[in-house]
């Protein structure tokens, strides 16, 4: 479903991605790990189409299409979802209305009718309960004044409501206490289906105690330097990233 081939990209003339190869099939969950500053968020942003990055080489195919040609909202409408490392505050924009607008934008793109108020309310309440997001926060402005954990739960709620084809989670686990971490993991596990691809960016292996990845990749210095199974994550936990970087440099 997602095929990244030799992707290189730079920011302000500085090369960040130096040839990334990655393939995610429907039904698979891949974890991307790596030290700070290795380019994980850069990769996630480029997949979502954020401005400010220049792709200097390589290609990305998503559901058979040239992903990089699509506008940000077109990618979203084709089922690509990014849970952001730093969810953005939208003061004055009601959280529930935002979610509903978003759902309807995706539904319209699929040629479906807009969701009726009743089923929307039912769904949003049920899913808010699942991610343990206080219902009061549904009535507040999007992320405005939310705690770090609340923001992340809100991202998971959006993901659950929007039912993406490909979900990318950028360090959704960072800065969470163990309860919140489990909630995020539950949210991810609930969404695992045979049709859905997932790319989970994480700095720590502890999330993988709750999520069984099909593959683990290590992104270091703009390249995937190692791919493996779950055991790779455990090895990283034990040994850190240093040895991989040395091996990669050698």
């Amino acid at each position, binding site marked *: 479903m997602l095929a990244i081939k030799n992707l290189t990209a730079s920011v302000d003339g500085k090369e960040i991605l130096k040839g990334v190869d990655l393939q995610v099939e429907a039904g698979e969950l891949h974890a991307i790990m790596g030290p700070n500053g290795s380019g994980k968020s850069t990769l996630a942003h480029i997949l*979502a*189409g*954020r*401005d*400010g990055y220049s792709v200097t080489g390589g290609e990305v195919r998503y559901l058979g299409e040239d992903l990089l040609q699509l*506008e*940000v*909202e077109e*990618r*979203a*409408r084709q089922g690509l*979802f*990014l849970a*952001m490392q*730093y*969810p*953005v*505050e*939208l*003061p*004055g*924009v*009601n959280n529930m*209305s*935002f979610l509903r*607008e*978003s759902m309807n*934008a*995706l539904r319209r*793109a699929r040629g479906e009718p807009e969701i009726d108020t009743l089923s929307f309310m039912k769904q949003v309440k049920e899913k808010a309960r699942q991610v343990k997001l206080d219902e009061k926060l549904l009535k507040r*402005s999007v992320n405005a004044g939310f705690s770090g954990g609340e923001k992340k739960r809100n991202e998971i709620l*959006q993901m659950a409501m*929007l039912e993406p084809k490909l979900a990318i989670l950028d360090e959704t686990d960072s800065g969470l206490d163990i309860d919140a971490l489990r909630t995020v993991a539950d949210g991810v596990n609930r969404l695992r289906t045979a049709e859905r691809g997932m790319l989970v960016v994480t700095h720590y292996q502890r999330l993988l105690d709750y999520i069984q990845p099909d593959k683990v990749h290590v992104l270091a210095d703009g390249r995937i330097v190692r791919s493996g199974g779950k055991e790779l994550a455990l090895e990283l936990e034990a040994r850190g990233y240093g040895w991989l970087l040395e091996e990669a440099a050698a």
Partner: protein
Amino acid sequence: MGQTNSEMEALIAAEYAQGFITRIDSDTFPPGLDEAVVRAISERKGEPEWMLQKRLEAYRHWLTMDQPDWAVINHPPIDFQQISYYSSPKQSPKLESLDQVDPEILATYEKLGISIEEQKALSGVAVDAVFDSVSVATTFRETLAEAGVIFCAISEALRDYPELVRQYMASVVPHKDNFFAALNSAVFSDGTFVYIPEGVKCPMELSTYFRINEAKTGQFERTLIIAEAGSEVSYLEGCTAPMRDENQLHAAVVELVAMEDAKIKYSTVQNWYPGDLEGKGGIYNFVTKRGDCRGDRSHISWTQVETGSAVTWKYPSCILRGRDSVGEFYSVAVTKGFQQADTGTKMIHIGENSRSTIVSKGISAMQGSNAYRGLVRIAGKAENARNHTRCDSLLIGDRCAAHTFPYIEVKNPTAKVEHEATTSKVSEDQLFYCRQRGLTEEDAVSMIINGFCKEVFQELPMEFAVEAQKLLAVSLEGAVG
């Protein structure tokens, strides 16, 4: 459309049996202003002698005044001898069908969700009888008359209720008040008169829109609203039609008088032609609006959504004379392109326990410049007066500007005056976030802006609030990026 213009005019004229609405398009004075012009206007209107004398007094005083230059606006000096002071407000030729209307205007109407019939009326197309405006107006007139409410053109009021007009006109905004008020007092061509008798709650929202002939009143309108003790009225001014008049000067004066326990709510949605994106053309809007809370517990509330005009200079104000009187000002002002707005309010507290609330939301996009100017004055006698001011600016892009000028004068130590101000930007992060959730950039911007303006929109009557939202979206289309 089966009807010809003249038939339609006959219909309208028949409705306004009082004689107002002599079609004035063909009756345009040559440009220029002197005493003879002032006299001619008064004569044309068949005004009483005292009105003429008041006009002349204002004119003579105006000659001694200079154009104000303290506002944060730049425009070439206005040549007052180049303006015609008596003319049909819409100088464009009368249109016979919608086909003759600028398609861009029609597209805008469509986005605003304005019906075809309304479109015809607003574009100055002769309205055929299918659009039942006349009978609509008649129904209103009857309902209002039953309640004892007077709602008519000010020239009509000068003929039918001269003593009422004489008693109140210029009692809130005297001609010496400021340059533009003096000019208006000398040459005002028409406007609206509203009188709500004691204890009457006006049975409907009053709007110039329903006084069709008034919807396009000219450059120098004069509005006078009087709410007697215990009465209540909500008045909507303007419609959201883009008026394509070229670089015109509008200098209106609006006076409100609220007696004991009376309540006046005055809402404006203004979308005059702002000029093109290079800054050519557009309306210069210099307006003096003031409400006098004369009676105890009286309440005057101004709500405005200003998206139009090239230059806006406007400070709807309240004089809180009565004890426990309340003044409110809720404003959204949008500037984009080369639009400039210098707007705000004055709350003059004189009465004990008088309270005022100011909520100002300024939005600037592209090279737009937006200034809030607000005066809160607490007079020595105003025990326990309170004011709360919220003044928020939202910037879209980085070439626009926002300024805030709060003036606070407190002469009574028991006063409580609070001022909060914020400036925020529609950030790239926000737009990316919204777009990642499937919204277009325009939807995202309008969502953020509507959120920003919520407190003001909820003060507008329902239908108006919806229109105002759409209007903002339309007016900011393409303003991002």
